[in-house]
């Protein structure tokens, strides 16, 4: 079992679709582990959040990044490449969460050192199951690096 911590997990959700973001938030609300979901709508904001730039100067360091691939301005692949090349943030696990199940996208994501690749399910129950599984593995079973 992972660490017992008092503070909630900080999760950065990079998602341009407000509906998906809300669904995820809802799903994370239903799990036992306390989580703080930080949502940014594009790749540029995702990087500014991570590097605490501009209005994100006081943003927390996320414990986990949930990254959609198709994003406005700077897409998920670019964000992934940037994160995994940056010494200060590359240890943060990145879970690619996307509607695409194309082999090309999967190859690209793992090639850029994504920590896992999950397809967004259509069915709500399955969606909730995915979130629960993420909780079980990443938030409970796995040890995560200290900020």
């Amino acid at each position, binding site marked *: 079992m992972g660490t017992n911590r008092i503070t909630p997990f900080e999760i950065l959700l990079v998602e341009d*679709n407000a*509906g*998906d973001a809300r*669904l995820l938030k*809802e799903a994370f609300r239903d799990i036992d582990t306390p989580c703080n979901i930080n949502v940014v709508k594009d790749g540029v904001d995702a990087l500014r959040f991570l590097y605490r730039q501009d209005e994100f100067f006081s943003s927390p360091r996320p414990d986990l990044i949930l990254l959609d691939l*198709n994003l406005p301005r700077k897409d998920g692949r670019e964000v992934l490449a940037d994160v995994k090349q940056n010494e200060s943030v590359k240890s943060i696990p990145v879970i690619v969460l*996307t*509607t*695409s*199940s*194309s082999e090309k996208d999967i190859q690209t994501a793992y090639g850029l050192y994504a920590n896992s690749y999950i397809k*967004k399910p*259509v*069915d*709500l*129950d399955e*969606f909730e199951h995915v979130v629960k599984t993420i909780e079980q593995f990443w938030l409970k079973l796995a040890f995560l690096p200290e900020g």
Partner: protein
Amino acid sequence: MAIGISGLRGRLVLLVLFAVIPALGVLLFTAFSEIRYEMDRALKDAHRFARYAAEHNNSAMNGTKHLLLGLSKIPQIRDMDAPACEKIFTDLIDVYPSYENILLVDASGSIVCSGRPLTITRIPTNTEWFTKAVSEGSFYFGSYRLGLVTGATEFSLSFPVEDNGAVKSVLSTTFNLSWFRAIAAGSQLPEGTTLTVLDSSGKILAMYPDAGDWIGKSIGRSKAVEMMQNNNDGMFRAIGLDGEKRLFGFTTMTGQGTNLRLMVGIPEKLAMEPVKKVFFYIGVWIVFSTIVLITAWVAGSLFALNKINRLVNVTKELSTGNLSIRTGIRSGRGDLGQLARAFDSMAEALQERDRELEAQTEELERSNEELEQFAYIASHDLQEPLRMISSYTQLLAKRYKDQLDNDANEFINYAVDGANRMQVLINDLLSYSRVGTKGEDFSHVDLNSVLEAVKANLKGVIEETGAVIKYSKLPTVMADNSQMIQLFQNLIGNAVKFRREGVTPEIEITSKKEGNLFRFVVKDNGIGIDKKYLDRIFVIFQRLHTKEEFPGTGIGLAICKKIVERHGGEISVESAEGKGSDFTFTLQGKGRE
């Protein structure tokens, strides 16, 4: 570049040879006829001359005989009047140089008078011509011999002068062979012609031109000598004493006691003089032919081979894909010039086609990319709103289930079901479009392994329905392995799915080789298909049953058709409703049976 007899240059030269050789043959034939004719003529000449000379000799003998007879009647000679007799003899010798000498000898052997001064006064009493003349009382022809005094060939002729039946004296003349020099010199025979007198043993008695060394020697034994001994006259060809080839004619000199042969030899090369002209023509012809051959060789290069070589090289270049190459031969009205120009326009057309093809390929690649893009959009962008509809209606139902009535729940179910079906349709459409764009390269695919994979994939339904799948050894084909699995899985899956109520599904797969193709039949004992729908079942999203009876979007057979067509085959169906269906399709049989 080397061109053998099969090459154009070789053939050209061969053609020239065909034209030249018969003419050469005619010339050679003429030459050989000419040689034979000339040889024959020379032999005849030699023979004729030999006979003529022999005739001359014979008449000389007869003349001498008459001379001696005449002399014996002269009173001064009968009376042995020495001075008068000597005068007669001397005059005779002066007129006839053939007479070496004329003698009158008395019965005792004393010389009465002589045509030439002699150192002796009497002859040996055993001298043949003397004893014979005395004893036989008639003419005596002596044989040729080498004269003791002159060293030349001579012979003696003697006649007894009788008085009242007793031999008083003997008249004798010595005859030399100088006569035939005169004949030979006066003849029209070619220079170098020889005259030879031989005795029966082959000893040379006289020769013209003079060959002193040979006189008295034997020419030895040879076929020619043998022939002369056995025949009175004839002709032959032999090498003369001087080592030169001659054509000989011979005959017998008669009128003497001995059997002499007179032989005339004409040098062959002289006889062949007229033939030289023909050989000269042959020589000229050979030189001419050689020049023609060389011209054909060179002209072949200049006028034809260069162009042909160019054509060959350009063809090779073209075949390696260099479509911009041209022969560049613009001149020449001949066949080759026309060929070259036709070739160039062909290359031009090819290049044009290539450009069109390239443009089409680019267009195709672009449209493929667009299709890819569409497929991606369909899988990602179209599904996202669907997920929203589906997820939020479900969330609504979940969060507010206590506040909603049955109607609301039913409506929500329809909305979710619709969204889910839309999702499936999009995925099916995606698979359908990917048959063409996402195919793997063809390889040798063993359809027996494909069937094993399909049975494994369908294990659930097969066990559940107790379906029996029968097939004998299937061939190996050149195909996309995963699409083969998809094809057989769709067909077998359909056969199991559309089974008759209460009937165990039986599926039989057979294959037959037809030329380059393999024809496959997947036969089932299912519900079959109404004839009026047969032509519709391969169309995408065509369904013959409600989704309550048989679930599915109607994509399976459309995908099957697309896969078979991608593999260069055709698919069709025959069916009897309520009995079963036969799906028949062909695949290109590039593989092994």
